[in-house]
């Protein structure tokens, strides 16, 4: 990711259009097979999502047993207070934790790109460690820690369910935002910041007026990715949550034991639409700032 240079920016439109496709007389069998394979894999990837969306219109009592088409699950979704509160908690936590992760990650990403030194290796090592540690290990280690901070250390804020969830969700996201912001700034020349310094701007002003606007597409993408990651977070949430502020995925997980009802599919469908809207926005922002499909894939795959 460190090999990106400004020339890539200039070359991007050209590669997007590409040279005129060479006229191929016949596709070989291998090519056809590859294409069928690719399409089958896409069907495989979408099968369960389509199933959940279809079953969200199941008027039966249990999700798995299809009864008849109807909108009852959507009505039930709006009426059940437990679902409403779970979704509200999830949205609150997502907004707060992604703001926090974006704040921490943006500064870290700027430092990584603009102030590299021996410390960079240590810090990137830490970020890598955060992103490769299995989530279950994160979860079980965070639980005793927040309990300790809340009761023994007397930091009562950590007895608050929202605070615990925000802390838990912000860790991985901070790493992701750092990668994205760093990758964007490394690809941009530092000359604008130098010019700003030459024109007597203080470092703070340069940071605020030049560096942050340059990094903005990455910051926004990082924010929205953190948001969806937080909405998605199940394992850490299941461990650190306090009863009374159960986030949506944990509610679903506990519903698994008592039997899944179609409302869950209905709510999931609504959340899916929300997530897709957020992701569409990310892709749009990245494309506007001149990234190719490959760059977008890299950014959204977490660097």
């Amino acid at each position, binding site marked *: 990711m460190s090999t990106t240079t400004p020339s890539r920016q200039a070359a991007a439109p050209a590669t997007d259009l*590409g040279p005129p496709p060479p006229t191929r007389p016949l596709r*070989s069998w291998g*090519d056809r097979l590859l294409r069928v*394979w*690719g399409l089958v*894999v*896409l069907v*495989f*990837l979408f*099968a*369960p*999502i389509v*199933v*959940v969306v279809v079953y969200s219109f199941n008027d039966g009592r249990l999700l*798995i*047993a299809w009864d008849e088409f109807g909108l009852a699950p959507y009505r039930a979704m709006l009426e059940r207070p437990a679902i409403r509160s779970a979704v509200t908690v999830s949205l609150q936590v997502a907004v707060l934790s992604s703001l926090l992760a974006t*704040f*921490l*990650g943006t*500064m*870290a990403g700027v*430092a990584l790109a603009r*102030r*590299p030194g021996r*410390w960079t290796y240590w*810090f990137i090592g*830490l970020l890598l460690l*955060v992103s*490769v*540690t*299995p*989530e*279950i*290990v994160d*979860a*079980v*280690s965070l639980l*005793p*820690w927040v309990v300790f901070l809340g009761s023994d250390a007397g930091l009562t804020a950590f007895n608050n369910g929202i605070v615990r969830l925000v802390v*838990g969700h*912000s*860790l991985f996201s*901070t790493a992701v935002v750092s990668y994205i912001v760093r990758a964007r700034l490394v690809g941009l020349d530092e000359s604008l910041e130098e010019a700003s*310094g*030459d024109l*007597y701007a203080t*470092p703070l002003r340069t940071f605020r007026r030049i560096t942050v606007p340059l990094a903005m597409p990455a910051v926004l993408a990082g924010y929205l990715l953190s948001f969806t990651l937080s909405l*998605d977070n*199940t394992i850490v949430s299941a461990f650190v949550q306090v009863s009374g502020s159960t986030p949506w*995925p944990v509610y679903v997980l506990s519903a*698994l034991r008592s039997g*899944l009802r179609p409302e869950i599919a209905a709510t*999931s469908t609504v*959340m*899916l639409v929300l997530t897709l809207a957020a*992701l569409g926005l990310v892709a749009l922002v990245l494309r506007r700032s001149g990234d190719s499909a*490959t760059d*977008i894939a*890299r950014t*959204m795959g977490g660097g």
Partner: protein
Amino acid sequence: MPEASPHAPAVRLRVPRFALALPAWAWLVSFFVVPIATIVWFSFGYKPGLFGTHANDVLSLDRYREALSPTFFTTFQNTLWVGLAGTGLCLLIGMPTAYWMAVKAPPNRRGLLVALVMVPYWTNFLVRTIGWQVILAPQGWFSELLQALHLTGGPLEILYTRTAVLIGVVYNYLPLMILPLFVAFDRVGGPLREASKDLGAGRWRTFTRVTLPLARPGVIAGTVLVFIPLMGDYVTATVLGGARGNMVGQLVASQFQTAQNWALGSAMAVVLILVIAATVAVIAALAWVVSVPIRARHRLVLEEVA
């Protein structure tokens, strides 16, 4: 850099270069490094009584012995099996797909294809897995379809077995394999493949000798990205595995949630991390050993032409 600027003010606050990264560093240390260190510390302790969760006044390695006792060892074996098989299947399924997306698909469709692969990746993990529960249910439509086509004798009996877990993890982690592979294949670029063909190599030879070696970073990234979270998987195994498809993730979780034995759970978590690290190291070593003779055979020494 501002430091090099001739107009820099004479008196400047000297801030260390990593100052901006300091908040993130502090945050990650206090909520990631310290908790993990605590877990490691707990793993040397024991469960003091019925109501205690952990105690560390006597330190020993007994919890590790317990974690590796036959009861739990089978779970570790099972997890490793699912991890290796799942990663292998992801690679087998993902590589042709990524190659097709990056090389064979029309260039103007590539963005769309990448988006299509990313949509499942960013939809709720739990919900996707529940989708599989619906599909694989013995009374579900898929089971009935298979019976109507006389492909199976009776209802589908996959749910709550290791096979279901394997399907679930392959499904859940496949995008993590496809995306880095796509990026890697896309990087290789058409001109190099054309050059290979112009020099007389066939399709297969071009793929194995040019495209694949150049895409190696993507293969490594994809394998690691899939294998590590897969080994720690908890949700897929819980939704699709039932009691029989046990994974270490569930074991660790139950020690913390139901058994309230934090010492043993911590030891299991530490063992899990060690197993993951060791397996990655072994696979890397194997890959290196295998690549040595291949590289030696294909080495080309350019003679100096006088």
